[in-house]
Each structure stands twice: as C-alpha cells, then as structure tokens.
C-alpha cells in the first residue's frame, strides 16, 4: 500500500499550489544617492508636531546647516530691533538679513529620539577677524580621524577655518581667508586622499585641493556634464554639498549636491532646485538628469551617508513665521522608500 499512500500524499501536497503568496521583496536595494529624496515625517524625526522634514525647531533665521557626527552646525541670527522695509526686487525666498542681527555659527545636538532631528545649541563661532565683515556663516564641519574637528565657514572676505580638539569642544579661528572671495564651502577627502573644497563663486561651482586641509590650491571651475531633464533652464549653480562615497565595489566617488538656479520654471522668479552630480576624480562631474527633492525652493544641500545606500540630505525650505520670511532646516532621505521606525516603536 506504500505506492497508493505516496500518491495520495502527493495529491494532498499538490493542493498547496493554490496558496499563491505575494512573494518577497528585498530588504533594501542599492541606491546611488540620486533621489528622489523624501522629507522625513515627525514620527521618524521624533519631533512631535513638526512640519514634514523640519529637523530643528528654532524661531531665529537659519541659513545653511551641515551635520557632523551627532551635531549640526548652522548659521543663525536673531531678529533685530529695527523693522526695515523689504526693498523692491528682493529675491523671493532669500532671507532679508538687514532685518536681523549679525549671523553667527551655532552647534545643535542630536535630538534624543528619532533619526535626523536636532535641538538648537550654543554659539561656537562669531566674527572676530577684520575680513569677517562682522558676521560668519555657511558652516561646514569635518571630523578628522584623530577626533579633532575643523569648521570651514564663509565670511565677507572668503572662506575661513576654525578648529576644536573635539567636535563638541570650543572652536577657535585658525586661518583665513584660505580661499578668498568664496562662499558656501564644502570640504571632503577626495578620491585621491587629499582634501577637496567645493565652493561657490559668482554663480559657479569651483574646487580647491589641499594636502593638509588648511592650505588650498584653487583648481577653478568644476565641469558638470550629462543630461538635464528638469523643467526650465539652468542659469547658475550654487551651494555645493559634497560627500565622499566608498562603494562596496571598492571605488571612491564624490557626490556633489547643488542648487540649480533655473529660469522658466516659476514665472518672474529664478527657481532654486536641488540636483546631484557624481565624479570619480573630483573635478569632472556627471549630473543626474532629475531633481533630487520635489519640494520647491530647496536650498543649501548638506548630505550625510548613513550607509552605502541610505543618504540623509539636509536642506533649507522657506518658512513663514514672523515679520520676515526665514528658512527652516529640513531632513530628507534617499531612497524615498527607506523609512525609519517611529521613535517610540519597539525595534
């Protein structure tokens, strides 16, 4: 009777073929940091009631913010006593700085809950040099292998450098201007192991190279090739935010997020849209054809890699909460399908 039993069993087992489950999906797919990025929500950030993506709650005006370790460095200024009239022709989306006190650089600490959120912190650098012109801004922190921290920043005369024994220590101005006339520095170790600074000069993106991170040798404009499928026409590029990528395949690449200033997208205005470009040598870049963040008027990108496939991208969006328009720091994640567990959820 073994054969009939086997056949009966076989028929019963065959009936399982009616299950038709939905099938598996990958835990995570490789991702090249090209977006589209998704603004984190309040549950992911751990900041209750926050607007989508808002990574730090602060009433003062904030411009660029850049992360380093568990900290976020940002330029900020309080509203001044005077209430000057907004002049005609003031670019929409730009903060009207004459209405605020001089900008200084502060350091925010990571919010205890969630991912990507910060709580506003103390001042770490203020204008002290004549070439500062009374204020400092555009911070870009770097933590070295030995734990010491550097803070690149911009002021009226160009890019300066401050250092601290630790990233949460006291920063002191050490050099500047190390690149005259530049703004919005972004410094990383390049594919060749040297320090590379990307910065903005008069609507162009340029690069400088340094062996020690203190003395930079300007290399002029970087080239950005590739197709641009975005709406409107790109007329300027600004606000580079670079990140060094060591791929699992053993390559070192540079991803450079930047503002594309475009005509023809918003009537009567020059629109700011974030794009990304990649390079194997740090000088010749190829752009991704599409914008990385759908939100309008996103500025000052500052990326940080969580791992080889997940990138947090800090940026700035317009914020209307006082007599003058300011901007808010937002955090977004790419790939957009990546989702962080709510802060109070069990792991």
């Amino acid at each position, binding site marked *: 009777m073994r*054969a*009939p039993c086997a*056949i009966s069993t076989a028929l019963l087992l065959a*009936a399982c*073929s009616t*299950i038709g489950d939905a099938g598996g999906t990958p835990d995570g797919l490789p991702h090249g940091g090209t*977006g589209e990025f998704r603004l984190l929500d309040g549950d992911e950030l751990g900041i209750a009631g926050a607007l989508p993506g808002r990574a730090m709650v602060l009433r003062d005006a904030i411009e660029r913010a850049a992360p380093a370790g568990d900290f976020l460095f940002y330029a900020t200024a309080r509203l001044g006593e005077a209430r000057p009239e907004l002049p005609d022709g003031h670019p929409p989306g730009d903060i009207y700085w004459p209405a605020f006190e001089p900008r200084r650089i502060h350091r925010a600490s990571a919010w205890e809950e969630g991912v990507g959120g910060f709580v506003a912190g103390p001042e770490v650098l203020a204008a002290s040099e004549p070439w500062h012109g009374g204020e400092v801004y555009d911070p870009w922190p770097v933590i070295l292998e030995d734990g010491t921290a550097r803070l690149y920043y911009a002021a009226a005369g160009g890019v300066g450098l401050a250092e601290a024994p630790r990233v949460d220590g006291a920063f002191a101005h050490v050099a500047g201007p190390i690149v005259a006339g530049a703004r919005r520095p972004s410094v990383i170790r390049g594919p060749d192991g040297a320090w590379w600074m990307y910065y903005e000069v008069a609507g162009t993106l340029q690069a400088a190279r340094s062996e020690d991170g203190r003395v930079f040798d300007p290399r002029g404009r970087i080239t950005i090739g590739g197709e641009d499928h975005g709406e409107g026409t790109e007329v300027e590029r600004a606000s580079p935010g670079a990140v060094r990528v060591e791929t699992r395949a053993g390559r070192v690449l540079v991803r450079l997020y930047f503002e594309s200033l475009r005509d023809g997208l918003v009537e009567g205005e020059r629109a700011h849209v974030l794009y990304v470009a990649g390079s194997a040598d740090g000088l010749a870049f190829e752009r991704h054809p599409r914008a990385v963040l759908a939100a309008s008027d996103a500025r000052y990108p500052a990326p940080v890699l969580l791992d080889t496939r997940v990138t947090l991208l800090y940026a700035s969006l317009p914020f209307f909460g006082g007599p003058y328009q300011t901007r808010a720091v937002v955090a977004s994640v790419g*790939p957009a399908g990546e989702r962080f567990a709510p802060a109070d959820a069990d792991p």
Partner: protein
Amino acid sequence: MPRLASALATCALAWTLAPALAAASPQDLFGYGGRTSGLAMTGTSYAEGYEAVFANPAGLGPSRRRQLAIGLAGGGFDLRIDGERAPLTPPRGMTIGFALPIPFGDVLEDRITIGGAFFTPAEALMRGTVRFPAVPQWTVLDRAQVIAIILGLGVDLHGLVDGLHVGVGVSALAQLFGELDVRLDETNAFSSIVELQLVASYAPTAGINYRADAWGLGLSYRHESLSRLDLSVRARDLPIDVPVLNVGGLVQYDPPTVVLEGYWRPIPDLMVVLNVTQRIWDFYPGPQVPTTDMGRNAPAPELSSYPSPRVAVEGMVRDERFELALRGGYAFEPSPAPPARLAPRRTASGEPIATDLVPYRLLDNHRHVLTAGAGITIHVGAAGERLVIDAFGQLHVLQDRTHEIGRADAGAPMVTSGVILYGGWTARVEF
C-alpha cells in the same frame, strides 16, 4: 442548412489552420476521448482506461493493460443573434491520456490502476473573458479554450464484491492572479510593477460502478471546477485618491455534476446506454465582480439546474485480428440560463438594487446533440497488445430562443440560434 454548411466550412477552416499538433475537447461540453464522445458524452458505467479518468475514475479499476493515447479534436461554432453570426473561438486541441495498472502482488494484485487525461488547446491553455454585462456573451458555451489536467485512481474490489469498482480523481485548472502597481519610481517617473501568478485550483471527482456480464451501472460526481482571473490595479502617488480596481472575474466554470448511467448488452456485440447528467448551476455566481470594493456588481446570472438525458448505442463486428465498432447517440442539453433581460445590479455584497436595472445579455439555448463514432481495434502482439483508433463527430443544434430584450437597448427582442460541429480521433496503444 446554410447554417450547417457554414458550420462545416468553419470546421474545415479550423482544421486547415490548425497546427499539426492541434485540437482539444473541453470535456464538459463535448466529453472526453474518442469512444465516449461518439456515444453522446456518456461513459460513467462502461468507460475504461484513460477515458474513465474523466467519465468515472472507477472505470480505471478493471483495466489490466497499460494504455497510452493521443488524439486531436476540434470544432466550429456557428452561433447566431437575429441571424447574424456571433464570433466565438472554436475549440481545437490535443488529447493525451494514459492508464497504468500498478503491478502489485498478493492482495493488491490486479487491484489498483492510475490514469491521466489531458487536454491541451492549440493556442491558449486558457482563454478567459469577462465582458461588460450589457455585451451579448455565451457564458455557457464560451468555455472551450482551457487546458484540463485530470488524474484518477481506480480500485477493483474483486474478491470483495466481484464487478464492483470505485475511483477518485482530481482535475486541475489554472487561475491567474496579478497586481498592477503604478507608482513613482526611484527616478520620480511613473512606472508600473506587474506581477502575475498562476496558481492551481483543484476539483475532486469520485465514482462507483458495477459491471455484470450483460449490464452495468455507474454513478459519478464531479465537483465544481473553476478558474478566476483577478487583477488588482493600484495607482499611488497621484494627486487624487484612486480606489483599488479589481479587474477580472470568474473566467471558467464547470458546475458540480452528478451522473447516473446504466448499460445493457442484449447480445455481446451490442450495447445500449442510458444516462442522466445533472449539472448543478444554481451556485454559479456569474463572471463579473465589482470593479471597486464598494462598487456595484453586474446582475445575478440566476442559472438553474435541469437534467440532461442521453442515450447511446454501440455495435461491434469482429474477427480474430480486427474489431470494428459503430456508435451513435443523442443528448438533450437544457439551457440553465434565463433569457437576456433587464436585471437589477447587485451591491458588492450581492443584494439586488431594484432601482438599478441594466440589460444583461447572458445567452444560451437548449441544445440537441447528435453523436456518431467508429472504432477499429487491431490486435498487434502475441501477448494481447492492441492498437485502437476511435473517431467521432458531434452535431449540436441550438433550439431557437427569443429573449426579453434586443441586441441594442431600444431594439426588438433578439432571437438566438446556432449549430456546433465537433469531431476528433484518438489512437491508443494497449500493452
């Protein structure tokens, strides 16, 4: 006669266009195998070997020789609405069957036989259609394009009750499930993910027969065999909410069927068969499903069950090496469907909405089926090996029917009629 000529022409064209390995006979409409199809789709009491896998798996029990059979079958539809021809794909396909007595010894000697019966349509393993309810559709007849895989096991209870056999089987059909997911992809462009799965659905069969020297009785039951096509269409990331769309329905349905049959041999070379086949259509839910979870469904099909009487005769002429069999039969297939009519749509839960009457053109007619066939058996080996070739033909005449509504919403009531021709052959070796 023009209708018959047209059907013949269609049939001829179908054969001409058919690939060399063509033909299939959807078993519920035309029967299965070369012999029983010529005997008015009977066989519950007398079918043996691979044909018994469909007709009544108990018929496998007395098989003592291995069988391998192949065959071709095909046909043509000439169905008419108000005299105009309604397009319906004719069935064509291939028959493969086998029977295998398991050569156990001792108490299991000559006891167990397994068998398989397969139809493989020439072009599509399954063609499933779900139409808008207002579109004229031959729901009962348009089931001819589907593969069948049937396995059976018969047991001969000799020694316990000589002549008594029991059998069980299972038939498999494929169902198609899928998801079409339209969403923004990694590049912020809309793209689609399509996932389609075929899963199997199974329908059990069971039967019993008793054979004496000159007569026999058989009873079989085939459970409902159905196939669904179920696609979920989701559109995400749109600026508006779009409900999940459920597209598909019930594309293949053979109702539960009970068959009672007897045969009598007044002389050894003459067999008379009487058969009553009861298809239980009452549970047929209709082909359509609501497009959205809370949307309205098509009207209820309201099919009913009527018995189908059948009668067949087989005569034999034989000598030492050859046998010739001639067969003929008649079956009446009453239509389970009400006429095309205005009928109320249903809620998603199946309740009729009396205020929402829509035309529902589910078409079917009573059928008178005449069958004929012939078989030649050639004894080819000293140990009793045989080659058997069977051929059959069927003529289905659809009795004219006047419906309650017309082809168009404002037209006069439509009249449906038609003719179906179906034929084929099988060749099997027994060794």
